[in-house]
């Protein structure tokens, strides 16, 4: 009953028992942090605090502290927002879509990928908040009666759809993640010896005991949540892209945006998962669970989605030419050859060219190469959003108002601050949460564990 074809590589390496999985997943929580953890944590914390300072400065003085001008009214803030939301797509994709497709390799990576999702959506949500200028008015985005009478929100607006999409995505991803965490917290609780630790995990584990009926409901809840999260994850970046696509700016007003943005989001999300997991597997010695095969699978997804993004770029160019609209044609010509040509070609190189190396098995199974490409891809995806936003805006219909955008130290500081904040959250998570969904992983040990597979032969 635990049979799996021998042609499939084992997903759990080494001679493991259920108890070994318990011990190895609990180890990072029960032992002292390595020195490298403290080093990265300190750096991230400094970056985070610098970002907090820049955000407070923005709130105190206003968004005049940013490099925006009359022509370029959206720049780094929205670029960063879309970039972070995009990164936040891989986690739920891995845990929901791969669950529906019964891809068992998701089990040792979904926990961290979902954590990454939640932490990056937090970063993303910061930007529309502070871009409002008057953040204390942020509740105006919710459909609640306000002090001017019942002037409601505008349900026709994609910006409002975004509010609903991001809030739903964040909160549903959070409960999806948490429901999966409960049995693992229970495992940590039952092993904990220090009273404070035991108490914390007692609270976090909700008293989980693994009763048969509870597991039955757990599996049903996971399946239904996956079914709900699958269209949800696709809807979020679709709606983000509608912020642009429903406007009448040349370069934005295109129907290809929703699928193109979703592919780009999965692309950058998987790249960030690679960056983080290559570090996690090394730092916490998870090589037996996050194997080269896992890295390779994700590289194949990066290659596929990167190619989809490439096709989308070329389609955009073709449609701009084919439309016969001269503003549209100019917008794209200006992207590739105008003053922001370097951003455009960085995007093309990083997103379309670099993932093509993954056709070679030697390269896609190399950790160092994967790590480099994963960072290159995320740089490229940041440039993609910058290109879409800034180069479409900076030369509008009236040449006398053409301008350029240059970021101030506040723009840069807030961006660096969110990277710091993201890593602060992720590093804290990696030390206090079970980084692998061990309960779920134990269910495949007998079918996909290396030692058990040998027994079948």
């Amino acid at each position: 009953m635990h049979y799996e074809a021998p042609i499939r590589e084992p997903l759990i390496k080494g001679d493991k028992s259920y108890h070994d999985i318990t011990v190895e997943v609990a180890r990072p929580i029960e032992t002292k942090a390595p020195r490298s953890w403290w080093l990265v944590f300190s750096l991230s914390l400094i970056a985070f605090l610098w970002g907090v300072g820049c955000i407070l400065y923005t709130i105190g003085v206003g968004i005049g502290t940013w490099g925006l001008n009359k022509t370029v009214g959206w720049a780094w803030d929205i670029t960063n927002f879309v970039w972070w939301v995009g990164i936040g797509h891989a986690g739920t994709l891995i845990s929901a879509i791969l669950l529906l497709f019964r891809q068992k390799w998701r089990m040792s990576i979904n926990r961290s990928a979902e954590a990454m999702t939640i932490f990056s959506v937090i970063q993303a949500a910061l930007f529309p908040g502070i871009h409002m200028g008057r953040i204390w008015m942020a509740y105006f985005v919710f459909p609640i009666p306000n002090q001017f009478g019942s002037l409601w929100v505008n349900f026709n607006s994609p910006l409002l759809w975004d509010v609903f999409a991001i809030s739903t995505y964040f909160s549903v991803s959070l409960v999806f993640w948490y429901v999966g965490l409960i049995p693992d917290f229970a495992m940590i609780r039952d092993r904990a010896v220090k009273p404070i630790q035991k108490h914390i995990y007692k609270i976090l584990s909700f008293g989980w005991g693994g009763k048969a009926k509870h597991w039955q409901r757990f599996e049903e809840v996971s399946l239904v949540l996956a079914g709900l999260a699958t269209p949800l994850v696709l809807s979020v970046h679709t709606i983000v892209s509608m912020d642009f696509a429903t406007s009448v700016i040349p370069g934005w007003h295109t129907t290809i945006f929703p699928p193109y943005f979703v592919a780009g989001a999965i692309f950058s999300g998987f790249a960030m998962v690679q960056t983080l997991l290559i570090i996690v597997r090394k730092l916490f010695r998870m090589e037996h669970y996050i194997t080269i095969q896992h890295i390779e699978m994700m590289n194949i997804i990066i290659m596929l989605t990167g190619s989809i993004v490439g096709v989308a770029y070329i389609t955009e160019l073709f449609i701009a030419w084919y439309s016969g609209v001269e503003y549209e044609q100019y917008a794209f010509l200006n992207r590739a050859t105008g003053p922001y040509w370097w951003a455009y070609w960085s995007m093309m190189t990083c997103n379309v060219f670099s993932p093509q190396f993954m056709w070679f098995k030697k390269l896609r199974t190399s950790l160092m190469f994967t790590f480099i490409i994963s960072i290159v891809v995320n740089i490229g995806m940041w440039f993609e959003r910058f290109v879409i936003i800034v180069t479409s805006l900076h030369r509008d219909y009236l040449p006398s108002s053409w301008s350029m955008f240059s970021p101030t130290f506040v723009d840069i500081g807030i961006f660096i601050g969110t990277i710091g904040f993201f890593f602060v959250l992720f590093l804290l998570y990696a030390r206090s949460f079970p980084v692998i969904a061990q309960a779920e992983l134990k269910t495949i040990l007998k079918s996909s564990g290396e030692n058990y597979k040998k027994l079948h032969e």
Partner: protein
Amino acid sequence: MSSTTDHKVIINALYDDDDVLLKGVKDVRAKGYHVEEVYSPFPVHGLDHAMGLAPTRIGTAAFFYGLLGLSTAIAITYWMMIVDWPMNIGGKPSFTWGYNMPAFVPIMFELTVFFAAHLMVWTFFFRNGIYPGRKRLNPDPRTTDDKFLMEVELTGDREELMTLLKETGAIEISEKTDQNA
């Protein structure tokens, strides 16, 4: 929640393998005993069937929660955009909900998912009786690691049940007391 009452004696049988446990559950039930509960570190495939548990209805509940979310979205968009304060936005029709509906599809979708997911998870917590700070439900802490615990109600001869449990491959057999309840 202690299930031990004056007239009911529960025997705990501990296993160290999911396949042995599953066979044990089947054997014990085949002999006419009632399996009270099984605690396991992970979901054992086929265990609910072997124990004779009814299928869970939580998925059906989620469907109705989703319908509730969809109705909520229709109600608020209708009330806010059509009845209470219709606004002319880009010349889009604002006098009937039907003509304006395409613009509300994202909201309808998101609220359906929001209600279905959250209310289902709340139901999951409520029906399981789990909440932050709840005393652990598993009597033996090893059952979240690599051990499996079966609770069998004692009916008939004690020795007979003990022998049966031993035959099924249980590694530890004990009577459930208040300490390990």
